[in-house]
């Protein structure tokens, strides 16, 4: 027998000692995770109430941190959401596993109610202060500011220093953390990468952010449709295991099997019942009461249901961005040349409904890091609209990208690696039950079924993209031919005339003849280019790819904020999306005039 007394600990105690498991493993990650949890909560809260989110983020350095090699960082996130009642504030910010979403099978960003409490704990541990929350609901007359701390011993939130607060919006919530951390702006784990990524997969979001040593930035929304929060639908029978299936029946009491299947599950209709009978289900059993069905019979029913093809889970059970909104949002990535977007129908992978969306965009003017001409493409990963920024190589999304033969679509790709070139590959996975590899939700487990589904979406996006790339190749071909004609024709004729000592008259005639010959080649190249151009345009018309041209350029989405309170329009932080010079058109014009003169 062990001499030591066995004691039990609170959840808060466990997490306070293991914060590295939930994203606080380094000072850099601590800043990012705190920001991420605050922004995720704001977005979830706004969407729940159908409010178009407008979030302001301010991050500042306030001095030196207490931990070695850290700064004291102030993080403030304010939203225009519904706000929280004072009763809920300590639960949300100071209590672990207190969540309105846990186990409800919805595609919300937060799930278990750990993240924001962990951020409060980190603030409490490093700066001895919890989180400062300012809230105002519609029913509150005045915004209230409180400080929340975590009672680690009892896993409870404690309110302190309640006073009158101030918010920009008529209702909403503001959270302020003072933590030890380090700021990384760019790169895989950078704050800017997180913020722009969040904007990409949330087209309905207006985001203002101010980061240290950076000018304030506003990313305006490109969609006024607030995504419908997926309602908690009945479970799809294919997503269940046998034990779950039997337990589910116990919730319905005395009810016939037929009624239970139709009421207790989604996607089971009278037609499906007929299919079950066809596939071997005893018809009489359908009228039996579920409480009379024994385990062996349940097993038979379960296997028949799994054998029968059913409609995929409802699209309402997963929250997709949609091709239209995603297309608009992709443009906010920078100077986008062209892109393709694919939203796949939801399907089942590993017994869970999932929906995959992919955007592949080519950027202009990227000179260093990922997404340059020679480097690997920039991969943006999203799970339930939250950017994933660490442990890229082990992620199912990266494995799926590497498994696609991108060379077939005109991209460069070293063997078994990411393709290379100035492209961004954004992969978004939405599912009520995403299988993460760790509690800090940094990387998605690579099951075969999921990788295959991701791969198919990527292939579709690649196929769409290839139409445009093919057109470009033709355009390049035409350009080369034009250049060749201009460069080599006079040299060839000159050399021949010098060797043969031909008179000027012959030289002139030979030049004309040569232009005629090459003009014929040009006509063929022009025809090929026109065909490829037509194919690309058709694809663009069907919304399969988009090419950014003069007409497509919209008002700049990235705006600087006036520095001293004055309202004025200022230039975008990044250079405006310049129209792609339609070089092919110019080439064709030149070619046409050449041909005219030649013939």
């Amino acid at each position, binding site marked *: 027998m062990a001499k030591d007394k066995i004691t039990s600990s609170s959840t808060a105690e466990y997490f306070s000692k293991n914060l590295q498991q939930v994203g606080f493993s380094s000072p850099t990650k601590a800043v990012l995770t705190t920001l991420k949890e605050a922004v995720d909560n704001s977005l979830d809260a706004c969407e729940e109430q159908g409010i178009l989110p407008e979030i302001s983020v301010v991050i500042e350095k306030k001095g030196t941190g207490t931990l070695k090699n850290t700064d004291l960082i102030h993080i403030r996130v304010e939203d225009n959401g519904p706000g929280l009642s004072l009763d809920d504030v300590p639960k949300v910010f100071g209590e672990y596993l207190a969540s309105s979403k846990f186990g409800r099978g919805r595609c919300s960003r937060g799930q278990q109610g750990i993240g924001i409490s962990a951020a409060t704990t980190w603030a409490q541990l490093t700066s001895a202060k919890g989180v400062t929350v300012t809230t105002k609901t519609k029913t509150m007359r005045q915004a209230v500011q409180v400080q929340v701390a975590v009672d680690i011993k009892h896993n409870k939130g404690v309110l302190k220093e309640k006073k009158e607060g101030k918010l920009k919006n008529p209702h909403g919530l503001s959270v302020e953390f003072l933590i030890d951390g380090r700021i990384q702006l760019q790169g895989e784990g950078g704050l800017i990468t997180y913020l722009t990524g969040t904007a990409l997969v949330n087209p309905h979001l207006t985001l203002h952010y101010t980061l240290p040593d950076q000018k304030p930035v506003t990313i305006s929304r490109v969609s006024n449709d607030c995504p419908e929060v997926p309602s908690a639908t009945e479970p799809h029978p294919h997503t269940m295991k046998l034990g779950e299936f039997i337990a589910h029946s116990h919730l319905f009491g005395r009810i016939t099997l037929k009624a239970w299947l139709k009421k207790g599950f989604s996607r089971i209709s009278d037609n499906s019942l007929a299919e079950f009978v066809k596939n071997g289900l005893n018809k009489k059993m359908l009228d039996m009461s579920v409480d009379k069905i024994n385990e062996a019979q349940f097993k038979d029913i379960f296997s028949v249901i799994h054998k029968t093809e059913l409609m995929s889970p409802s699209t309402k059970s997963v929250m997709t961005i949609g091709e239209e909104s995603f297309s608009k949002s992709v443009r906010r990535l920078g100077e986008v040349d062209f892109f393709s977007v694919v939203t796949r129908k939801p399907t089942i992978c590993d017994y869970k409904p999932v929906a995959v969306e992919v955007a592949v965009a080519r950027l202009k003017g990227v000179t260093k890091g990922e997404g340059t001409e020679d480097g690997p493409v920039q991969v943006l990963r999203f799970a339930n609209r939250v950017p994933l920024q660490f442990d890229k190589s082990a992620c199912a999304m990266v494995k799926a990208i590497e498994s696609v033969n991108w060379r077939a679509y005109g991209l460069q790709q070293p063997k078994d690696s990411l393709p290379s070139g100035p492209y961004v590959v954004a992969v978004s996975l939405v599912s009520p039950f995403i299988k993460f590899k760790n509690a800090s939700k940094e990387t998605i487990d690579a099951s075969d079924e999921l990788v295959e589904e991701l791969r198919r979406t990527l292939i579709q996006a690649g196929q769409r993209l290839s139409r445009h790339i093919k057109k470009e190749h033709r355009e390049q071909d035409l350009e080369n031919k034009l250049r060749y004609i201009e460069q*080599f024709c006079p040299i060839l004729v000159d050399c021949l005339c010098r060797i043969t000592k031909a008179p000027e008259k012959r030289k002139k005639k030979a030049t004309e003849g*040569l232009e*005629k010959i090459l003009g014929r*080649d040009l006509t063929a190249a022009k025809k090929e280019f026109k065909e490829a151009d037509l194919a690309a345009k058709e694809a663009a018309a069907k919304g399969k790819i988009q090419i950014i041209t003069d007409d497509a350029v919209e008002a700049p989405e990235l705006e600087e904020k006036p520095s001293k309170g004055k309202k004025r329009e200022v230039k975008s932080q990044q250079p405006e999306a310049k129209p792609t010079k339609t070089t092919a058109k110019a080439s064709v014009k030149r070619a046409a005039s050449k041909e005219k003169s030649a013939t």
Partner: protein
Amino acid sequence: MRSETIPKISKELCNRMLSDLENARRPILEAVKCSLDNSNYSPKVGYLTPGDKKVRTELNVSSVQKMSRAIFLLEVLLRNIDTGAVNTKRELYYIAKGEVKHDPHLKPLDFQDQSESDAVIDFICEMLECYREDLNCYANDRGGQTYSNQLVVTETLPDGTKAVVDLSSLGTSPFQPKNRPQSLQLKAKKKIDFCLVVESEGTANTFVANGFCKRNNSILIGAQGVPSNAVRGWAKLIQDQLRVPIYFFGDLDAYTIQNIYRTLKAGSAASLIRNSDFSAPDVHFLGVLPEDIKKYDLSDYPVKETDQSEARALKKAADALKNDPFFQDKRNKNLAKMLEWLLKNKRRCEQQAFFMVDPRDPTMPEKIIVEKIKKGNFI
């Protein structure tokens, strides 16, 4: 083809191209296809000859660069012929770059690499069916160092004067044959019994130092690996002018037989247009033969298949047995058998292994060679 005729046919070619252009017709350049699938072998002829296949380059937008470069370099080469200047391929590469530098108008023709200008020179040769030496483009004279106490060489110099070289008067220095042996005349002061071409130049030097040429009325040549044009032309000259039997002595391995010996005896697929003057069909393979290993108890060892170059040599030998008309000919069935033996046993034996027969007698390899010649123990 003689250098004097090249300007004429070049002019005709350019005139034809110019007329085609004047009439808005696409000029076509034709060149012999120099590859194994266009190689014929007849034992009566004795070397690989080109078949009917031609490489046709019709002027279009894609080929205009190649054609322009060919005509540009042809002009440079014709100028060389006219002035009597000679150059190597590397020098021509720099001359071409110099032309471009002095006339920016020619910039599109600029060569990024010597391999690009080399390919154009080869194309011109294949088009005009001439040797590069006919275009005054010479390669470095590599290999073929020759020793003999009986041989006298008379060289006709470009200005018409003649230089006579008595090889016996050179002491221990060898005679270095030229890439263009057609200007040499050979004479034997005394009857020459045979000519021995040794694969390793070092071993050839050893033989001479040990008195091979004093004891044997012979010509001794060091091939220095794959025979250069100089060695090939030189062997052909000895065969035709002196009519002495020629023997090749080298390693017993796939590379030596398929690459070195075959090239010396019948030329190569890459040089189909010049094999007639650059191969010695009467040369025999003296050894090392597979039976020599047993007979003289020579040390052999397995081929390392993990070694890339050796694995490539074996693969090439297997291909040669299937596709090379030289090895497919009945007259060369003993050579083909030897290749098969090498492929099957995957062993090799070096020429220097003859030194182990009697380690204290430095002339033992010579004795074995002479004995093999006398007994007709060769292929």
